[in-house]
């Protein structure tokens, strides 16, 4: 198996053109079955399933566990906040914790992350203030955190459109001699968009240090994977762009960490982009506003809950003695406290100055925007003098 791992780690990008394709193509193809370290319930999977990937250090697994516990609690809290009218909408990543946390843990602070609307949990794991992370979904602004300070792009809503940004940003860093890697999250549905393909192709051509992490959670809202693509697996997209690819059990936190670490370090080393498909499952509805019972069975959900990433990791860490019941209790307590603080802070009404509508359209407002702001000022002034009240 070391051999396979060795050749996976081989640098050098596929030459283009006819004739010599065979060998190169084979090297780019993913494993025929998803990489896994753990079986469905957290026992050890057969060595062969690891595809030569390395077991990550135990501390990393423990840290992942802690953040997954916190992430799941955060996620539940956010869903609860929608019911209390404190969030406009919330897309849960319950069940996808391995990818949410894994994608964060493999990155350095200097690396960039490109999340979608579903990655609120990843944002929090990355250390972003949870209130700032939820700004978009609360509706007080489109992005609550500073992308530059956090090296985290705004959560992207138009599917896959953040992919070329990640490629451009990573390429820019590499031009300056920095060793920055950009990791971009895309959903299974998002892979159908033209921008995903264009980004893969640009990344291949410019050897940009980008890791494309496809969270294949088997649904795009209500549309199941089978209607999304006829591909044997989405990881097979990579070879057509000269991009090394892998598929991984996305509910196996160890496998996700192992493969992503390899992918990120491969990209960092100058070997070009990497495409990782993580097979996972969206346990909740698309968002709180969605009714998943319209398009899928409870039995299907239950089956996937049997492969819960958090349980699997916990079982494993307990088994290998890396985690004690006290550790579990402490992690849960930390998560509870985190959720409590968040709840309190989210109970305050956000305050947005209407004048801010005009502030950051351009670095300097145009005369037209100054004029329009003046009109709004007049209205607000008139209201104030009438003693306020709703606009």
């Amino acid at each position: 198996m070391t051999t396979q791992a060795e050749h996976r780690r081989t640098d050098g990008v596929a030459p283009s053109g006819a004739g010599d394709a065979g060998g190169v193509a084979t090297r780019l193809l993913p494993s025929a079955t998803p990489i896994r370290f753990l079986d469905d319930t957290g026992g050890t999977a057969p060595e062969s399933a690891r595809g030569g990937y390395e077991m990550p250090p135990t501390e990393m697994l423990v840290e992942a566990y802690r953040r997954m516990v916190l992430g799941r609690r955060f996620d539940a809290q956010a869903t609860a906040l929608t019911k209390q009218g404190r969030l406009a909408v919330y897309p849960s990543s319950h069940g996808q914790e391995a990818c949410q946390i894994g994608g964060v843990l493999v990155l350095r602070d200097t690396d960039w992350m490109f999340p979608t609307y579903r990655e609120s949990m990843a944002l929090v794991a990355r250390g972003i203030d949870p209130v700032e992370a939820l700004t978009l979904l609360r509706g007080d602004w489109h992005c609550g955190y500073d992308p530059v300070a956090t090296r985290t792009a705004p959560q992207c809503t138009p599917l896959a459109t953040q992919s070329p940004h990640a490629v451009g940003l990573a390429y820019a860093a590499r031009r300056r001699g920095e060793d920055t890697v950009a990791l971009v999250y895309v959903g299974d549905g998002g892979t159908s968009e033209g921008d995903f393909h264009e980004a893969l192709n640009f990344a291949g051509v410019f050897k940009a240090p980008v890791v494309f992490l496809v969270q294949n959670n088997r649904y795009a809202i209500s549309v199941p994977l089978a209607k999304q693509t006829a591909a044997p697996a989405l990881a097979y997209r990579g070879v057509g762009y000269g991009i090394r690819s892998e598929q991984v059990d996305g509910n196996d936190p160890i496998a996700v960490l192992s493969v992503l670490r390899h992918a990120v370090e491969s990209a960092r080393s100058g070997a070009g982009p990497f495409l990782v498909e993580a097979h996972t499952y969206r346990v909740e509805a698309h968002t709180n506003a969605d009714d998943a019972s319209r398009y899928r069975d409870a039995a299907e959900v239950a089956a996937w809950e049997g492969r819960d990433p958090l349980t699997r990791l916990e079982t494993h860490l307990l088994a290998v003695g890396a985690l004690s019941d006290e550790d579990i209790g402490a992690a849960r307590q930390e998560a509870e406290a985190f959720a409590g603080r968040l709840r309190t802070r989210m109970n305050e009404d956000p305050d947005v100055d209407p004048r801010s509508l005009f502030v950051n359209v351009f670095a300097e407002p145009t005369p037209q925007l100054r004029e329009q702001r003046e009109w709004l000022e007049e209205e607000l002034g008139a209201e104030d003098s009438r003693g306020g009240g709703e606009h």
Partner: protein
Amino acid sequence: MATTLAQALNAALRDALHQDDSVVVFGEDVGTLGGVFRITDGLAGDLGEDRCFDTPLAESGIVGFALGMAMNGFRPVVEMQFDAFAYPAFEQLVSHAARMRNRTRGAVGVPMVVRVPYGGGIGGVEHHSDSSEAYYVHTPGLKVATPATVADAYSLLREAIADPDPVVFLEPKKLYWSKADVDLPVTTAPFGTAEVRRHGTDATLIAYGPALPVALAAAEAAAADGHDIEVLDLRTLVPFDDETVAASVRKTGRCVVVQEAAGFAGVGAEVAARVQERCFHSLHAPVLRVSGFDIPYPPPIVEKYHLPDVDRVLDAVARLQWDDEPDRRHLTRVPA
């Protein structure tokens, strides 16, 4: 019986599917789920998955695929899930759907409807509230319809589906749950006909889609100030009903256009330009516009400051130089 605008759209699709085998409905989540706004609710179940189905998530692909089907005997009705998510299909709409008949000297018409839930006011996060009509109306070869009433929702959509040419069908999503007592099926005035929704003599308010209720409410409020206001609903932006518009403004001599979209080079600009071209000598005041600001659509918490409301329309009406006083807004240059 009270019918919502959403139900009227659903009924129009259903009736069209029943009556014409060549009609097919597809897009993202329109099949099993019935669409995120439930406009296609029950269609896949009742008419079969071959008549109403889900596609891969790719708007350019959806419109291009629809065009191919339209070239080959079908009448596809596709849904773009939200206004801003139609942008990836821009090339297919502008360079192909709009041009195929012209390109082929009439040999290949592409009867297809691109349904776009549009506009704001529903507390949607970024990209869920755009008013994108100006992009389409400026594109020769596209028809653009936008109902504001329940009856029109049904009738205009049926007409769009029957039309031999591509129609961008803009559905004001904040009116999806508005209700009226309408017996379906119903046939209202055809494409290219504006409707006088309120008769009046002192000024003309011109609106369409989501702005119509605002205009009507403003007209009611203005009545209290002694202004008798006429309200027009454009219904289709392309074709445009110059006759009804000009007749009204020639009668009233004053005109305000109301739209949600950003003002600059929006539909309101076209209406203002046309009205002053055609009614110059009847106008006692410039044609004024009430519109969204020239800013990216703002987040839910502040969208109310962006959207035209009754007060802003009333303010514009008040600036129609009733005492022959020029508009104070443009008398002096505004601030630095």
